[in-house]
């Protein structure tokens, strides 16, 4: 690997976890900056300008969710939460606070690297000004200019809402979007409590883009959290 791998800020107070992350990320060419507290994390985030943040939620001097909000005030750096808190409301809270992804401990290193790849790729895409007019994931192709959606080359007809949801998920491919985030983007800021609206349209959408809507391969459910469009390289 080159010496100039991406800088990853690891915010984690557990020494054993840090050891594991150092070994695993280091061997893949990442340069690690380690913080053991919210205070340190803010300092290092300003001084090192990391390209990715791995964030534990339970820190000795504060909460990772608060830190996420603070970071989001001035940076769009991808934040992946790594936490032993596995409840759905914790995930939703972290994602709605601005985290890009959420991994519950314990997790395997393959999963971690997959999520890191997705986050970095997504950051590169939005950072470089998204001029892509064609989004492609597996068999799915969305032509943004013509508002056309094809599955395995065959055109499918979507309602305006279905199209909006699909484009939103495709733009964030690989990332979980909470019900609230989808509602806000598709329906507007006032309607963020009617999660079943999203479910109705996702169910319809699946019938059109999935080979077997009962066993979705592409548009997967994160129960109690939201939906995710599988990234092509997952």
């Amino acid at each position, binding site marked *: 690997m080159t010496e100039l791998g991406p800088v990853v800020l690891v915010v984690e107070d557990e020494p054993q976890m840090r050891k594991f992350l150092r070994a695993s990320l280091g061997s893949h060419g990442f340069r690690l900056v380690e913080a053991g507290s919210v205070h340190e994390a803010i300092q290092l985030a300003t001084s090192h300008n990391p390209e990715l943040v791995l964030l534990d939620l339970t820190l000795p001097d504060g909460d990772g969710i608060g830190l996420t909000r603070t970071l989001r005030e001035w940076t769009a750096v991808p934040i992946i939460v790594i936490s032993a808190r596995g409840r759905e409301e914790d995930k939703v809270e972290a994602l709605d606070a601005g985290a890009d992804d959420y991994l519950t401990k314990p997790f*395997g290193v393959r999963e971690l690297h997959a999520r890191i790849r997705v986050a970095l790729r997504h950051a590169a895409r939005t950072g470089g000004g998204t001029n892509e007019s064609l989004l492609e994931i597996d068999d799915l192709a969305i032509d943004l200019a013509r508002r056309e959606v094809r599955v395995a080359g065959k055109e499918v007809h979507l309602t305006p809402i279905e199209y909006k949801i699909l484009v939103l998920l495709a733009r964030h491919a690989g990332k979980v979007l909470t019900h609230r985030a989808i509602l806000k983007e598709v329906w507007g800021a006032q309607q963020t409590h009617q999660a079943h609206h999203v479910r109705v349209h996702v*169910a319809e959408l699946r019938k059109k883009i999935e080979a077997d809507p*009962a*066993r979705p391969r592409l548009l997967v459910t994160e129960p109690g959290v939201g939906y995710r469009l599988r990234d092509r390289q997952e």
Partner: protein
Amino acid sequence: MTARIDRHAESSARGYVWSVAMVAATTVVALGVRAYFGLPDVEMLFLFTVMVAATRYGRGPSLMTAALSVASYDFFFVRPFLTFVVEDVRYTLTFAMMFGIGWVTSTLTTRLRREQAEADEAVLRAKTEELRSSLLSAVSHDLRTPLAAITGAATTLRDDEGLSPATRLELLETVCDEAERLERLLANLLDMTRLQAGRVTLKRDWIPLVEVVGGALGRVEQRLAPERVTMSIPDDLPFVPIDPVLMEQLFVNLFENAAKYTPPGSNVEVRATRTDDRVVVEVADRGTGIPAGDEERVFERFTRGSHVGVPGVGLGLPIARAIARAHDGDLTVAPRPGGGACFRLVIPLAADGPAPDRGAEPS
């Protein structure tokens, strides 16, 4: 708390009413038999009434029964009749005896009742303790087994230098698999504890059933190959008012159960139907089935099929049932015609359950 006081006051008021009624009845009976029996027998009759009141209604009503009995006895049976005047000092002793018996009997009864209640509570405590210790021993055994494998594999990798690459890989796989098993066990234990303690608040929403079943299948596909599962969920099945996370867990547990106790490659069928006010989901397999008479036992904690070498603690089905019941539904199992087991989940649809609207099309 308020409810308990109210109930107490109510039962005590009923005791007073019954006391009055019993004294009135005794008086009538005593007047009837007065001609044939002696005065001591009438005394006995009143005493008996006081005792009955004391055993049944406690101190207050028993003392009132004693007082009323004295009054009635004095009024109707002691000269001069139909007055409360007492000529003979002897009768004051009778009155004192009636009060005394009322007091002593009611005290004894109250004490007995209290002791009984304490004994019941002690039995309950002992049972809870027994359950807790059986839970602890089952859990510690099942926690130690994967831990032992992990420790064994990890120390071998650390200390043994002459291992072939294949062996090393195998040991590493053991560490990963057993860690995963530990994690599942812990998750199950946590779920069970939360469900048992009644601390779970359902986050219900209108959910398409197929989403939950599909999600569960996705989670178990390592253990239950997707092609083994046949699904028939009608397209027009209404959305169900469920907690999607818990309900998905229920199906994961049912599918894992099927994966463990059925022959590899055998079919598992998921069928959903709607009757007026509920949705019924059946998960039917072609395994060995549940032995007759064990249909309830499989839902008890730490009960396991008699299969040697199948990992697990016996929490999956109890958790699944607890989830069903938390939804005011139920989960039962019956033999499947032609062999195997058929789990049946009933989810009530709320009476006012509308087909959820789709949300206004944004402009």
